């Protein structure tokens, strides 16, 4: 009784905001596109009280048949993997420094990591446009100093895309790493030193392996949102790079093919659930 009461709110939450939207998404993905509002026909029709199947697997089949979608998905996964790896590479030393800092300084350092969240996400991305565009600050300074004659094509490039991605998702990688590293007993590295390990060796054989769960969590927390990211590629990325998020957006808003967009969303979800399951198995094994 008491158990049921405690479990009810989270279950209700999951039903309302996870299970129900997923079911709706699945229904849309199986439906026939139609002209009208909403722009699809329900996969089940009602004939005198009896349900009749009128859905189609055409949208799901289109995902496989048209190489555009697989390419966009692969490109998105590649961009997300690079984002995750870059975030991890930058976040690890940051988290290590914060974890090793004097305890009274840690809250301030963590606050600095979280500071970007105090500004709107779109504002931060727009700021990059202001810095990187042809008449922007960076090109202005470079030309003013006579280092370059013509403006460098900084904006709408792969580099600008990665810059925006890493800037946005870096804090997500820092926090789980910090949580793991700050929980490690400092006596462990001292024990390694007392057993003859140089500092670099002590880090490599003790701290690094013990921080792997935090590193995996940090990578995934950057990788997963980056894989479906739409706004950053749109604002900063090269126009020819069709990432899965942009394709999804185009199918939904421009082509108004809701069933195809829903099928894409489900496919993306399935691809992203895979690394999460992998990570959880890793956690259970430890």
């Amino acid at each position, binding site marked *: 009784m008491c158990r049921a009461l405690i479990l009810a709110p989270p279950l209700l939450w999951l039903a309302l905001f996870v299970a129900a939207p997923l079911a709706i998404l699945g229904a849309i993905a199986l439906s026939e596109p139609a002209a009208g509002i909403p722009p699809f026909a329900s996969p089940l029709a009602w004939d005198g009280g009896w349900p009749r199947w009128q859905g189609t697997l055409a949208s799901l089949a289109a995902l496989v048949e048209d190489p555009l979608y697989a390419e966009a998905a692969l490109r998105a996964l590649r961009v997300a993997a690079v984002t995750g790896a870059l975030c991890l590479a930058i976040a690890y030393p940051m988290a290590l420094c914060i974890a090793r800092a004097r305890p009274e300084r840690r809250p301030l350092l963590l606050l600095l990591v979280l500071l970007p969240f105090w500004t709107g996400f779109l504002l931060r991305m727009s700021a990059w446009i202001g810095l990187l565009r042809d008449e922007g600050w960076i090109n202005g300074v470079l030309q003013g100093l006579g280092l370059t004659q013509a403006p460098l094509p900084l904006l709408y490039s792969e580099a600008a895309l990665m810059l925006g991605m890493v800037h946005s998702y870096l804090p997500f990688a820092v926090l789980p790493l910090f949580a793991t590293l700050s929980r490690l007993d400092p006596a462990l590295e*001292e024990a390694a*030193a007392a057993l*003859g390990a140089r500092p670099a060796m002590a880090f490599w054989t003790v701290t690094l392996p013990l921080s792997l769960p935090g590193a995996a969590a940090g990578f995934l927390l950057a990788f997963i949102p980056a894989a479906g990211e739409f706004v950053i590629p749109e604002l900063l990325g090269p126009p020819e790079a069709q990432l899965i998020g942009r394709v999804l957006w185009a199918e939904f808003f421009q082509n108004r093919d809701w069933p195809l967009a829903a099928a894409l969303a489900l496919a993306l979800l399935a691809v992203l659930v895979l690394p999460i399951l992998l990570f959880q198995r890793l956690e259970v094994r430890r």
Partner: protein
Amino acid sequence: MAPGEFLALLGGSGSGKSTLLRLVAGFEMPDAGRVLLDGADLAPLPPHRRPVGMVFQGYALFPHLTVFDNVAYGLRRDGAARAEIARRVAEALALVGLERLDRRRPHQLSGGQRQRVALVRALVRRPRVMLLDEPLAALDAGLRERTGLELRAIQRATGAAFVMVTHDQAEALALADRVAVLDQGRLAQLGTPVALYERPATRFVAGFLGAANVLEGRAAGGVIACAAAGCTLRPAETPPEGPVATALRPERIRVLPPGAAAPAENGLAGTVTERAFRGESWLLVVRAGGGQALRVVLPAGAAPPAAQTPVALAWDAASVVVLAG
């Protein structure tokens, strides 16, 4: 410190005993002074190049490595050959009876087993000095005594010099060849357990080891007039003239039969204020005529006087130890 010696650093919290150990290990740097090993200064050596082994408080076993890999860690850093590592780790684990648990992880071991893994992990490299930071503190009382004796047997067997930090005076007295009592970062006294117990040099040592009664008074002509306790002390050796403090062990005080008068010297009359049974002994708190409370310990077999009864106490001259400070 002599080779193969077992030295205990004894002190309360904040006495600097752990800091001293960390100085020898190289985790702290001395502001002044030197750490000498066979006449050579250890100061320029970083921790990983010092020929010392350390057992940490809480053991600091590597949680991601098996017992075997924990013990092999130091040998691998020294670049030992694979076969030699396997042989020496097996030897070390056999020494503490853990040879069948070598595939386990630290969290699958009991507290006593972890302590032994931490011990042989440091010992397997054959360090010249072993540093042990409260090696028994994390064990429960029953296990502590047995593990302590095992520790000393292993120390004798390996011949390494052991430096053990502890706050437990019974542990220090029972295990060590010599005990160094630290008081607020200073060495209060260094000596064998018996010497320390029988002839404490300072009030702190007398109070810390076995909670001796400290009687203060003024010495003149070989006797000490102690106003607070309302008695006259005559120590075996002549005390220096002027104000002195003396230590009197609770178990060296005799309770005289009812009706007997206290002797004029080395005795007093008082009232029992507290009586507590401690299993192997009785603890009495006696308020002396001058107002000072004295602790008296009687063997459990004796019939102790009841609380709130008058009592006469006496002791031998040899039991009165004149303190230096």
